[in-house]
């Protein structure tokens, strides 16, 4: 027999690990053969030039005074200036309780023994930066334009309040999904009250406020509605199935603009004085109804991807159909379609710009109106106003997409 092999030292049991330095990464991935080198150089030149022009515009040539003068318009449209406290109060409320909810959620997830151990503080800060940088850029840009100390202080206070809410939320014991839900609902109601109760008429709403309000409301409304439609489409009762399929196919067959226009003449078909929703309500309802049809199709895909065995297992355990849907079907379906769902919601957010067709002043409409003001007419500052709108949309949408990625990773724990 051969001599006994020396047992491998603990070093041999480590996976072979070579440190990738940035330089070695670049060499291995961008310049590893001649055609890759050509591509790298070619696109490198194009991208550098574009970046150069973009940055030069942003920092040097752009005449931001048009946005500067209209900053408040961009944010809230014609919202009465003496009622701006409402908006600030709503922001503070959302920041504070948003932080609190995040803290409680964090607490919940650390109570869960399946969660990974808490990462060190440095990790958490890095993580926060990775999440918040698009929004930070937007806020810094706006602050730089406003040059108002009051607003700067208000923003700082808002950030501080959010952080404080987060800390308090992480420390107050007894977090539960139920408490978080109640808290979130209460916050939503309070926010609506703050903005709407005895508030300015709907025509005066505008800008970012209107865009965010419309998207939030219609996202929140379209999601449950879409789920119901998806379930209805799979129902065993033909009547329900026909109604749902009909709804989905009609809505998906008509452009959103058409539906928005239709909504304005809808009152011609209703009994006089029966009910006359204002434009914002109408737009929110149309956006929600429209998106619900798409959400329904996405959710249907999710439901169909669930193996039959899952449903049978639930039935064999004695769960009734509604419990099977709530506890087994929905959670699994949603996990499968998070990316598509968030994609739909991002698309909805951008589609809110279409409400200008029924006379509402969303952020895009507002920003386009600046160039016709007396001070700026004929000065060719369209690029600046559009760039500002772009930045706002991008910060919102990119954050949504990043958060969706995060959600996907967290929901996918332990799945194969």
């Amino acid at each position, binding site marked *: 027999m051969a001599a006994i092999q020396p047992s491998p030292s603990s070093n041999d049991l480590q996976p072979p690990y070579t440190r990738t330095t940035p330089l070695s990464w670049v060499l291995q991935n961008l310049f590893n053969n001649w055609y890759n080198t050509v591509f790298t150089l070619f696109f490198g030149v194009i991208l550098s030039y574009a970046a150069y022009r973009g940055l030069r515009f942003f920092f040097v040539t752009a005449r931001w005074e048009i946005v500067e003068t209209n900053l408040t318009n961009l944010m809230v449209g014609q919202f009465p200036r003496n009622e701006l406290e409402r908006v600030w109060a709503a922001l503070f409320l959302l920041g504070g309780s948003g932080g609190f909810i995040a803290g409680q959620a964090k607490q919940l997830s650390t109570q869960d023994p*399946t969660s990974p151990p808490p990462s060190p503080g440095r990790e958490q800060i890095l993580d926060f930066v990775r999440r918040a940088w698009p929004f930070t850029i937007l806020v810094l840009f706006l602050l730089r334009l406003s040059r108002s100390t009051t607003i700067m202080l208000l923003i700082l206070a808002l950030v501080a309040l959010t952080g404080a809410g987060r800390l308090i939320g992480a420390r107050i014991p007894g977090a539960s999904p139920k408490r978080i839900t109640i808290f979130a609902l209460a916050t939503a109601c309070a926010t609506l009250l703050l903005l709407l109760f005895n508030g300015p008429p709907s025509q005066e709403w505008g800008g970012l406020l209107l865009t965010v309000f419309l998207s939030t409301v219609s996202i929140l409304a379209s999601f449950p509605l879409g789920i119901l439609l998806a379930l209805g489409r799979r129902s065993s009762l033909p009547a329900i199935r026909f109604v749902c399929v009909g709804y989905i196919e009609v809505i998906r067959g008509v452009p959103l603009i058409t539906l928005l226009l239709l909504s304005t003449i809808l009152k011609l078909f209703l009994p006089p004085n029966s009910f006359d929703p204002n434009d914002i309500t109408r737009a929110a309802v149309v956006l929600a109804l429209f998106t619900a049809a798409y959400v329904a199709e996405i959710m249907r895909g999710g439901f169909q991807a669930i193996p039959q*065995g899952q449903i049978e*297992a639930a039935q064999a355990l004695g*769960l009734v159909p509604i419990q099977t849907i709530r506890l087994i079907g929905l959670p699994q379906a949603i996990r499968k379609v998070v990316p598509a769902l968030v994609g739909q919601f991002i698309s909805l957010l951008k589609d809110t710009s279409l409400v200008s067709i029924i006379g509402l002043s969303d952020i895009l409409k507002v920003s386009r109106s600046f160039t016709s003001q007396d001070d700026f007419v004929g000065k060719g500052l369209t690029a600046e106003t559009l760039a500002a709108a772009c930045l706002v949309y991008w910060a919102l949408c990119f954050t949504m997409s990043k958060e969706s990625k995060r959600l996907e990773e967290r929901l996918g724990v332990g799945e194969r």
Partner: protein
Amino acid sequence: MGDKENETTLPGPFPPQGKKPLQKDNQHMSQPTSGNTPTNTPMIVCEGIYKWFDDFCALRNVHLTVARQEVIVILGPSGSGKSTLIRTMNRLEKHDKGRILIDGTELTDDIRKIQEVRREVGMVFQQFNLFPHLTVLDNITLAPRHVRRMPKKDAEAQAIELLTRVQIPQQAHKYPGQLSGGQQQRVAIARALAMEPKVMLFDEPTSALDPEMIKEVLDVITDLAESGMTMIVVSHEMGFARAAANRVVFMDAGEIVEVNTPDRFFSQPQEERAKTFLSQIL
């Protein structure tokens, strides 16, 4: 990757020497009939069951009576209707003709009756069918909490107890996707047992497992059989059938062809089709 430390601590010999003596230490795993039901009535009665898929007849004139605490192993070639038969017993398939009574409750279109039966009948599937989005603990506590309205604390205590029974208490907080096949199937058994069923149905519980994991699952099922649980097991595991079954049922083409004791069935089958089948799988 069978966990060695578990296998060494398994109670009882395998295969067990005595067939189904009621072992005292296993009693609380089974609930041998709630006190007031008469123990001499059969647990399962199938009378003249027919089942068609479109115009394909999957079950024809099946008669089977299963006594309390009896263990039945169903054998038969692929497509012979074994799965279909046990799936009619908790209404995962609707039978088209005949009568099925589970502990005296007849399975009809009445939803409440169906739910009643499903609460009393546990089922274990070939593909485990654990809920991938829930931890092992939540998989087990789900039905007790939502169907039996058991408080969370009690349900979790019971789940840990069951996981100890099936030899994997340390996996409670993992997700099914993080377990080996054998461990997953044992969780599935624990999940069914958590409803404290009177009957357990197993549909080829070891067919999707690698050979080294089959034993750990069969040990658990054998243990359960010895504790007095009424069970119907679709399985081709000869050793298990010999060790645990009171009767072997041989099916072919939707019919029950032969019912016999395991010893007699494997050594001297009566029917020609059974002989052919045995010669093919032995």
